[in-house]
């Protein structure tokens, strides 16, 4: 009897936190992409710098387990580095091609980077609102109709 109740509650909690987990992964990825775009804007005048961007859709799919993440390197000794794997990793970032070629072979297109930055900021905020919304829904459900 108690075991059945515990299992039901466990499933309920899982269902409640699944949305939160998904949004939390999305938030972390959004902030990582923000960092990548900030790097591009910072290096707008660096000769030879190649602009990078994250394939957000596949990074999110890998982070939430909807797609398989490529195997990660194993650290078998204390000094080993263990880089991230998949679309969010350094190696998984895509290189941007320059819209207009440049003599110093810098491929940062400031218009595009500014647009991506604004886009990413808005979506980061949207994710924050989704999280706030689900927290509020959960709190309402827990408190019930008090009046």
């Amino acid at each position: 009897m108690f075991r059945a109740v515990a299992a039901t509650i466990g499933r309920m909690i899982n269902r409640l936190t699944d949305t939160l987990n998904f949004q939390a992964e999305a938030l972390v990825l959004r902030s990582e992409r923000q960092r990548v775009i900030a790097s591009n804007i910072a290096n707008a005048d660096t000769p030879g710098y190649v602009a990078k961007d994250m394939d957000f859709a596949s990074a999110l799919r890998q982070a939430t387990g909807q797609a398989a993440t490529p195997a990660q390197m194993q650290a078998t000794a204390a000094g080993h580095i263990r880089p991230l794997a998949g679309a969010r990793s350094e190696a998984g970032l895509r290189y941007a091609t320059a819209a207009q070629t440049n003599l110093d072979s810098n491929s940062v297109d400031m218009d595009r980077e500014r647009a991506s930055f604004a886009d990413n900021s808005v979506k980061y905020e949207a994710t924050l609102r989704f999280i706030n919304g689900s927290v509020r829904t959960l709190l309402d459900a827990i408190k019930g109709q008090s009046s």
Partner: protein
Amino acid sequence: MSMFQVFNISGSAVSAQSQRLNVVASNLANADTVAGPDGSAYKARQVVFQTEMMGAVSAAGVKVSTVSESDAAGRRVHDPKHPSADAEGYVTYSNVNAVEEMVNMISASRSYQNNVEVMNTAKTLLQKTLQLGS
């Protein structure tokens, strides 16, 4: 939290661009400097930017690797009455090109503004993140 590194990245860019602005200011200030007794006038300086990895993956800041001096020949003006004129009556000025420096200045100030705006946006987003769940 990778959002905090945005401040390191954009901060490094802002300081590099302000150094570039400094160099432009000294070039413009010395645009009309004539050659001294040793015969060499002021040489235009130029900063060289380089990507600086900031620890974590995909955090690429920027730094000034060197300040290089231009080897271009100085501007020579025929003015025999000038106290610094040489035996042929020519005065050698610095090799600063004022137009190039103005363009450089505008580019540096635009990049500076871009990076400041990036930091402002990151700050707003972080503040909203801190208020999460309230």
